[in-house]
């Protein structure tokens, strides 16, 4: 075990630090969508131009050919500098990287990573939330070898802004469940695609409903094998759940510092209940940090990413929800007055135990696939 940087990693960190010193955004992150989305995309483009995106991805597809450790150094340094976190949706590209043909990888990944082309994930449906394998959107191969897609997707993050959607559709019989699902790349400008923003409880337009009405896309837009879409989703979801891939730690630590500032302003810096609550959040952050490092190290040592990320997701969820609860506790009754900036963040934290698989689904994965308990 050695948690220090290697000389190469230290050099990388130093280079990143000086780049950040020069390139930090001068304006603060906007509080509301869609301004926030455009701000994040602009920052992501700047990072990409600087060579700081997709560090662990192969160079030929727009990555930097480095390792998972460098990815975590990036997250740490962004946090240290108080910079916005790197866009949290790169996990979606993993499915193209893992299951795409050479042609697909060359066509889609550079635009994906540079955020010149925004992607969204068309997985969940009104009747297929946690039970994803019951999805009803259909894709039928016509005589010309094209897919004709019909159905509706829901809770599609970035659905209002996206250029492409990775759609999971039924290509098998209605009863085929996870064996009859295919992953298909659908340009959002294709005739028959329509979208409607879905306003979240905090007032943000983060999600959309996406409708597919006789949408025709070429057969070559199939990602992975026909009826092999389930495997594609598993790869994506495992990455979505990993704490290390999402630059959340830095964001959490910044929020805890802000909460500490609020506590100080309110004369609570020496209040026992407050110090205990802040200390409790801090132990969560540091535990999550070390746990992520362990996962990254496993990955750097060649262990594939799998079901164990459900543990990471639960830990991350718990941390975020405790953090925002603590914020409201520190604010006291004033939390429900005024602009409600913290309350908005609190509302968003309630989604943490839903997106990327609910906390209950994560526990199903842990008990079945990690503990091997028979149902």
């Amino acid at each position, binding site marked *: 075990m050695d948690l220090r940087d290697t000389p190469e990693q230290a050099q990388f960190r130093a280079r990143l630090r000086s780049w950040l010193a020069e390139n930090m955004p001068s304006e603060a992150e906007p509080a509301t969508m869609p301004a926030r989305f455009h701000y994040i995309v602009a920052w992501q483009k700047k990072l990409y131009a600087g060579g700081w995106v997709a560090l662990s991805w192969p160079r030929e597809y727009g990555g930097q050919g480095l390792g998972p450790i460098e990815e975590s150094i990036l997250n740490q340094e962004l946090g240290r500098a108080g910079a916005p976190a790197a866009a949290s949706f790169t996990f979606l590209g993993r499915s193209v990287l893992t299951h795409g043909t050479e042609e697909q990888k060359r066509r889609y990944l550079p635009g994906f990573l540079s955020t010149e082309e925004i992607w969204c994930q068309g997985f969940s449906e009104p009747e297929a939330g946690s039970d994803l394998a019951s999805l009803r959107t259909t894709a039928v191969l016509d005589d010309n070898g094209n897919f004709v897609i019909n159905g509706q997707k829901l809770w599609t993050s970035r659905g209002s802004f996206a250029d492409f959607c990775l759609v999971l559709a039924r290509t098998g019989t209605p009863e085929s469940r996870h064996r009859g699902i295919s992953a298909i790349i659908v340009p959002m400008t294709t005739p028959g695609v329509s979208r409607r923003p879905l306003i979240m409880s905090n007032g943000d337009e983060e999600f959309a409903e996406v409708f597919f009405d006789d949408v025709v896309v070429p057969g070559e837009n199939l990602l992975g094998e026909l009826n092999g879409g389930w495997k594609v989703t598993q790869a994506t979801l495992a990455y979505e759940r990993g704490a290390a891939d999402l630059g959340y730690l830095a964001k959490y630590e910044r929020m805890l510092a802000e909460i500490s500032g609020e506590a100080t302003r309110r004369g609570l*810096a020496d209040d026992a209940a*407050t110090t205990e609550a802040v200390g409790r959040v801090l132990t*969560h952050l*540091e535990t999550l940090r*070390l*746990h992520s490092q*362990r996962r990254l190290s496993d990955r750097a040592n060649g262990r594939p990413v799998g079901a164990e990320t459900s543990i990471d997701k639960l830990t991350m969820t718990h941390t975020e929800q405790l953090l925002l609860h603590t914020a409201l506790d520190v604010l006291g009754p004033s939390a429900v007055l005024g602009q409600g900036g913290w309350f908005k963040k609190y509302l968003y934290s309630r989604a943490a135990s839903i997106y990327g698989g609910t906390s209950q689904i994560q*526990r199903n994965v842990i*008990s079945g696939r990690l503990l091997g308990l028979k149902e």
Partner: protein
Amino acid sequence: MDFSLTDEQQMLAGAARALSADLFGEAVARLALADDRAAGEKGWAGLHAAGLTALLVPDEFGGGGGSVLDACVVLTELSAALAPVPYLTSAVAVPAALLALNAAIPGSGDALLRRVVDGEPLALVVDDQLRWPGTVGATSICLDWVPGRAALYVQDTSAVLRTDIDAVPGVDPLHPVGRLTGPSPLPPAADFAAGEAARRARATMRVASAAALTGCLEGAARLAWSYIATREQYGRPLASFQAIRHLAADLLVDLETCRSVSQGAAWTVDNEDVDSAERAAAIAKAWCGQAAVRSVETATQLLGGIGVTWESPAHLFLRNAHHFSAAYGDTRTLLRALGSEFINLRGKARHGSA
């Protein structure tokens, strides 16, 4: 950055696990519960023969010259097997305290370090809040004390072995306690207690407690997982019920995060500056203390009616979890100190700029 245990550490863990299976387990813990210490003493002799009891003592004294992380790896395995041995005290805390004394006054801990190498189990005197080196005037409790055992007492800045000790009741039969009967004219010197060597020793004790708590959690979780896989109600195994499966999953979340934080903090204590070491150890102990108590309670719940009886080992794990959570800095005190430090460092800066 590499988080993995070395091949040697993995072998050490494997050896400690195999040895624990031979020497300890529920039957031996039950004897301790009945105040029969013979099996525990035999186990300690076995650990000594395997070279594990002096792992932390430097080579020059004939010890193992190992790292804090090495000792933590062993401690996790021993705790999972409910070993009624003073490993945390005698193989970790006492050598750490003696090495701190040596740093203050060279040679002052040498004689006792050699006794540790010879396999003599020693208790450690802490204050009545179970803190080491303890507040002036409040020093009195002897951790891991049984009749006939001497306890290391830091008197001013020298190592003194105390034998004027009476047994006092405690909740954990695996780790009995005593109390000094005589006066302590010169408690630990304040500048020694606040010095870097003593702070590092205290961090070592805390991170070792975190490793022990991780083992305690693991032992209880394994018990519960195997129980629900075999016990049937309504004609099927308990593990087939989702309410049960979700509780079982929570145990693994706690266990894996405890492993991460305790091992990462042990490495930090071995390799980083004293401020980082102290912070990492406090965080690890606070996390593992909360997780162990919570998860052993969950495991007890999963064991159902049998879990709340004297004949189930569940209460032994629960007693152990509380004992280790309380010693060397209790959870609540650690959380408050950590929170206070963070607010002063980060919140005040925010306050100033606001």
